[in-house]
């Protein structure tokens, strides 16, 4: 048994409304798990069910070998600590008194706190940077300070697993990082299992080992962070367009929100688009166009290029060439065929050099044969550089006279597609 929590077929709802719909999850021992999902997807409710603050209508939850739903609160409190989302206290306890309450499950009814309990409270308060507040009343400290005091109390329980419901909600940016880094270090050094609801996808990607993504009371996806947090899943769950940018500093990635998703038109299946791209300029385009239902081809791309690997993963037709090789005659013919059989050719903002100049020439051939060619401009000066002594510029001008059109950016391209093909359909 290497799971810490195992939940089988859990259902929870209020009278008519179902909030959690047949949820089964396994939380590994010592993992750092983030639960994400839009508002109302049931992530907090899921956490509260694990915390036993809510009682499910059906299903089972196992805490290692113990039936969590039948476990007395005091036994659960010795193993699991919970940091709730919202918190209000109207009665003046000092921070120290509050943190010491974390020792309650370990004390007998009339037993006073021992030296060990004080040591633990001090340790937890120093970790959460709240020791200087120890004599202040919890009614007087700021929201962020209170949040950290509550985390200190949770740590004083010496839990094996800690549940947090949006712990960063009341914190400013340095305390967000401080808290998550603390949890990460406890996770790594003591094997503390961390389960946290997070709103911020970037924090989730940066800190969590695993992610559960929820939608409409169901698990939409779960698994390793890099597998769950991709553009496709985020689009499906949040209806948002995002770009995943690798963060070379920590081998994680950042999620950059772009725009709200547009509706997918299944009629697009009849339309074939050929993409001339390279160097990663086609990643977003391939992903999005495929989502919208278009049939795609791309090329010529060198094997190993990031657009090449994206296209391979997406399973589209790729006209490929060996890495760093000159484009061969045969490949050119294949690519021309792809261009001539498509309804539209799109050229991404890539810099052109002698190596990929044939791609541009082929686009010109297409334009001259009456194929619609769209060139995505880009204001990035580096990408606009011409490494072909004006040859690329000549071709682009020729293309324009043959009816090729420019759009400003990716979004304009999608708008063009929408307006242009609406008439045809």
């Amino acid at each position: 048994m290497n799971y810490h929590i195992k939940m089988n077929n859990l259902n929870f709802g209020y009278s008519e409304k179902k909030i959690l719909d047949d949820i089964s999850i396994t939380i590994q021992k010592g993992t750092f798990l983030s639960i994400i999902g839009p508002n109302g997807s049931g992530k907090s409710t899921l956490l509260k069910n694990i915390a036993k603050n809510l009682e499910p209508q059906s299903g089972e939850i196992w805490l290692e070998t113990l039936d969590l739903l039948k476990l007395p609160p005091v036994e659960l409190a010795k193993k699991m600590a919970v940091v709730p989302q919202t918190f209000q206290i109207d009665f003046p306890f000092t921070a120290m008194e509050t943190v010491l309450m974390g020792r309650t499950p370990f004390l007998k009814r009339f037993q006073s706190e021992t030296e060990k309990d004080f040591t633990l409270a001090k340790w937890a308060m120093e970790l959460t940077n709240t020791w200087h507040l120890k004599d202040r009343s919890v009614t007087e400290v700021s929201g962020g300070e209170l949040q950290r005091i509550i985390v200190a109390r949770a740590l004083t329980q010496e839990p094996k697993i800690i549940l947090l419901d949006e712990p960063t909600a009341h914190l400013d940016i340095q305390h967000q990082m401080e808290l998550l880094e603390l949890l990460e270090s406890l996770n790594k050094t003591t094997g503390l299992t961390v389960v946290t609801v997070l709103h911020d996808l970037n924090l989730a990607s940066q800190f969590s080992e695993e992610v559960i993504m929820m939608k409409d009371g169901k698990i939409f996806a779960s698994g390793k962070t890099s597998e769950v947090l991709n553009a496709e899943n985020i689009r499906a769950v949040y209806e948002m367009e995002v770009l995943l940018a690798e963060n070379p500093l920590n081998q994680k990635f950042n999620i950059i929100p772009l725009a709200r998703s547009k509706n997918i038109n299944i009629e697009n299946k009849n339309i074939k688009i050929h993409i001339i791209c390279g160097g990663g300029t086609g990643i977003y385009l391939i992903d999005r166009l495929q989502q919208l239902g278009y049939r795609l081809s791309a090329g010529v791309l060198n094997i190993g290029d990031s657009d090449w690997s994206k296209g391979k993963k997406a399973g589209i037709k790729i006209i490929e060439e060996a890495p760093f090789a000159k484009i061969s005659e045969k490949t050119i013919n294949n690519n021309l065929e792809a261009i001539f059989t498509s309804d539209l050719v799109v050229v991404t903002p890539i810099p052109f050099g002698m190596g990929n100049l044939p791609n541009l020439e082929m686009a010109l051939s297409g334009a001259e044969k009456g194929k619609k060619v769209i060139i995505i401009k880009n204001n990035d000066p580096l990408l606009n550089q011409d490494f072909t002594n004006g040859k690329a510029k000549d071709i682009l001008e020729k293309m324009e006279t043959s009816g090729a059109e420019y759009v400003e950016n990716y979004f304009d391209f999608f708008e063009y597609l929408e307006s242009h093909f609406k008439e045809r359909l």
Partner: protein
Amino acid sequence: MDTNKRKKNILISLTFIFSLGIIMIFAVTIGPANVSFSQAANIIGSKIPFINNISDLSNVKNSQETIILQVRLPRIILSALTGMALAAVGTTFQGLLKNPMADPYIIGVSSGSALGASLAIVTGVSISIGYFMVPFAAFIGALISIFTVYNIARIGNKIPVYNLLLSGVALSSFLSAFTSLLMILNSNETSQILYWMLGSFSGKTWEHVRIAFPFITLGILSLYFFSRELNLLLFGESTAQNLGINVEKTKKLLLVLGSFTVASAVAVSGTIGFVGLIVPHSMRLIVGSDHRILIPVASLAGGIFMVFTDTIARTVLSPTEIPVGIITALFGAPFFIYLLKTKKTIGS
């Protein structure tokens, strides 16, 4: 609690116990018949095991002894017990319901007991059957109203706090309407009912003490037993549960224990207002919110306050007695306002 704080708390508790003792002996000396403090101390001492040997009754008259032991002492003990019960239950309910407006009567004790007492008074059973019919009817009335409120508020296995507060208010209005009706229809007994409702210790005997004592002391002790749970409940029911408390069970126990305690007090004293509301708040301002010290201190302070106000009630317009409920409000409210203005930290 660290050692310093524990020492401080013991010191505070001892101070309050000592003060209660002193004020009770003082109260005994006050009244139409003249008795000095040392006479009073000797008379009381002579009845207490172990210190009766050193009590000197040589310069005490028999009449003085009778007045002290048979008239004043039971009344003062009863007022102390009632004050302790009201303050302890008020503290508990404020914590349990997380509502600063909560008092011991919030879930219907006062209206139920008032209706019970009124019925006993207007039907005349208190005269025909026995002197203790009014307390008995008040006690039963209180229990019936608490039971009703509890069951209106209950959803399945749980007692949501808001349900409890609202059903308490609703039932109180309903029962009060009946009491008012009884008063209108029986104008001869109106002043007697009103007197009972304002609360008084006039004419209370050792018999009353004997009945109330076990209920009230056991009640306060059992509430004190739950002080750690009460601390955690102030942080919300979810938090209390996450820290190991069986919340619903604790809530039910505290409601039942508190209600029994206060019903016993009301039965022998009437519905004395204000003590159960302001004494807990005042003591919270002084010793903080930790129920491990707050319950004993508030309870003792409630006793002190009640003995003090009852002494005023029976002496200030002597030989006429004023209902003690009038004095508690008259003295308690300004004192509480003073505390509010000077400490300024009641809740957030």
